[in-house]
């Protein structure tokens, strides 16, 4: 029997400053056998240990189709993220995982995909977007609506060009308020969706962002014609173990860490989850 | 081989007020007055800034002694900071003793900026006392 709480040691091989308070860390396991056997689905997460500080869950933001280490984007918030932001390349952290259900990729096949992201909410979606683009024939059109407070807060700027160029793929960027030299859209994400009116035919909407954005986006999507089953979101909760044991991340009888973090809006409604 | 109590060099944390005691310790240094190197100094704005939690954390994380040092009564840079400290730590000192924690481990002193020699003498005495009190056992296995 193994100690299920024991992480594997990993080294930070690259750090990219995405925004003033978000960094993307690229990690490689120290043990090559672990590195080779590590496999994840888009939407899954890992438990990140900063020894001496603690452990926190972060979603894996790279696609399993582009494996050159695990990538996690982290916003500086509390104790552990603070400590993580102070680390440098070459430093050692601990990784357990992957945990969670991930996105239901089979259900997305041959569908039009609408990605709706706000701020760092793009991180789990980036994994899925790149997965879809790498398996382009399995999916119909791809529409990405990505918003942030200001243009400085947009993450993964390097990839926008590739996404725009991809076949049958549209990218809409928006910021909350008008800025100088900003050429894309202006307005909060739900407003932009109302303007764009993306097709709901044969479509699935995948939403991730701050709770307030999700809250106002859901009614808009329903109004456009998406049924609750066709709206998928990935949730955040305080998690500790990632194994459905420590007991704090439950919504109804389901644990976000084990049964989630990806839920359909229909599921959330039956679980009485208040957005 | 049994470790002799007197041989072990104790670790002492000192919280020194910026205006008097820190300057006093500095003076001891610049005047080349020798004193034992057992003390680790943390500079604080005023002895009134020190929280009982600081003392507790030091003792629990393995420091053999804690010293709080500030301006003489009446000389506080903030007029009354050390008055508050005096009250606060009088209670802590007695409580530690009551709990059976050697009272020599927690001490307070007033050292002014000109008292380099007092500082040196104080530390020499303190180190002797804490050596006698023996090593702090808070990191023992039984405490887990």
């Amino acid at each position: 029997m193994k100690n299920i709480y024991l992480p594997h040691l990993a080294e930070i091989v690259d750090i990219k400053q995405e925004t003033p308070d978000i960094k993307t860390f690229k990690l490689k396991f120290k043990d090559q056998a672990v590195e080779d056997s590590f496999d994840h689905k888009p939407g899954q997460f890992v438990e990140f240990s900063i020894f001496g500080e603690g452990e926190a869950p972060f979603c894996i933001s790279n696609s399993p189709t582009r494996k050159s280490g695990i990538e996690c984007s982290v916003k500086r918030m509390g104790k552990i993220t603070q400590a993580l932001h102070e680390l440098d390349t070459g430093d050692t952290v601990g990784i357990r995982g992957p945990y969670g259900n991930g996105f239901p990729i089979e259900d997305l096949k041959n569908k039009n995909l609408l990605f709706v992201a706000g701020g760092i909410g793009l991180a789990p979606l980036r994994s899925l977007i790149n997965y879809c683009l790498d398996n382009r024939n399995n999916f119909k059109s791809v529409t990405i609506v990505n918003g942030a407070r200001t243009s400085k807060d947009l993450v993964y700027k390097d990839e926008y060009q590739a996404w725009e160029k991809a076949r049958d793929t549209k990218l809409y960027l928006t910021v909350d308020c008008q800025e100088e030299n900003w050429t894309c859209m202006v307005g909060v994400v739900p407003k932009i969706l109302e303007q764009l009116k993306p097709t709901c035919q044969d479509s699935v909407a995948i939403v991730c962002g701050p709770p307030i954005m999700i809250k106002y986006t859901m009614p808009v999507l329903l109004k456009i014609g998406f049924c609750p089953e066709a709206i998928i979101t990935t949730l955040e909760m305080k998690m500790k173990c990632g194994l459905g044991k420590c007991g704090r991340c439950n919504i109804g009888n389901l644990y976000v860490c084990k049964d989630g973090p990806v839920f359909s809006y229909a599921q959330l409604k039956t679980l009485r989850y208040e957005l | 081989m049994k470790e002799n109590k007197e041989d072990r060099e104790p670790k002492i944390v000192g919280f020194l007020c910026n205006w008097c005691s820190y300057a006093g310790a500095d003076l001891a240094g610049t005047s080349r007055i020798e004193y034992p190197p057992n003390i680790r100094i943390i500079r604080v704005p005023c002895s009134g800034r020190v929280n009982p939690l600081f003392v507790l954390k030091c003792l629990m994380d393995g420091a053999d002694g804690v010293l709080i040092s500030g301006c003489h009564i009446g000389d506080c840079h903030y007029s009354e900071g050390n008055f508050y400290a005096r009250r606060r730590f009088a209670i802590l000192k007695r409580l530690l003793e009551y709990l059976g924690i050697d009272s020599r481990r927690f001490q307070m002193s007033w050292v002014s900026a000109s008292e380099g020699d007092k500082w040196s003498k104080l530390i020499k005495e303190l180190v002797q006392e804490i050596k006698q009190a023996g090593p702090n056992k808070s990191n023992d296995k039984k405490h887990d």
Partner: protein
Amino acid sequence: MIQKIVTKEELYKLLNYLLQDFEVIGPKELTNRGIFYETIKNPQDLYLGEGFTTEPVKKLFLNPSEWFFKCQYKDSKNSLEEIALTKTKRIIIGVRPCETKGLELLDKVYNSEYKDEFYVNNRNRTVIIGLSCAKPDRNCFCTSMGGSNVESQGTDAILFDRDGKFILEIITDKGKEILGSIGNEPSEEEKKHWQQDKEKRKDLVKTKIKAPEDLDKVFEDPYWEQVSKSCLSCGICTFLCPTCHCFDLVDEQRRRLRCYDGCAFVDFTLQASGENPRPTKKERYRQRVFHKFDYFKKNFGENLCVGCGRCIRYCPVKIDISEIVDKAPV
């Protein structure tokens, strides 16, 4: 199952003998403090009376303060050092049937999909000798939770105090191995007598409640706010519960520690962003009741409550979960 009649002297003599190879743990009474499970050096110290221990036997399986591993940093290299599992064989005596039923419920969480090796190891190295309840108090409601104050419910053997002697029922091979040698076989007459006694003892559990089939439909009811008003948000009910198993993981001095945590605490679900899905007593108390009587049932088919009465007995403000569940407006 083997039935035996054992005198106190015989039992103590055996325990004395077993002390050579086993760690023996049992209830010990501390004046004005309560009854606690402690390592027993002398069987005479054992308390095998009617009173209940304050803490359930859970704490001997899920350690309230468990170190998982240490991260060493030497020669500018990190390495993880695992904490060796305790292998000492042990006997826990005087465990009440409700507490072992609690362990069986914990097995569903800790010895199922992802096995917690610390818990499983503690289970494997332990022989449990139960003690049937001679005097359930008004807070006990085990019989309403599908349990019993006299049946084994997961013990390896169980003692019944009767007329100054013990009736011993040996259930498992583990129990047989250590207890098989003592006592005398009771006569058929005595066996029959005992069966009647057992039934009588069952009736001593006076509090009867009915846990609702479907709590889910009263999730939004103002009832929860009402009943949680006096809650202090302390951890007594969760820490003393034989089935509550939520925990926290923290790093202390480069070591990872698991310690108890409970849904009554404000910080339990507080996120670093300041968001808290359960901000008030209402949501937190409802979570406790729902986890026990709804969520766990949905996931594992049973209520996560054994009716031991600890949370009622020790609640600082006498919140009575049995009454609250019984009177839920379904």
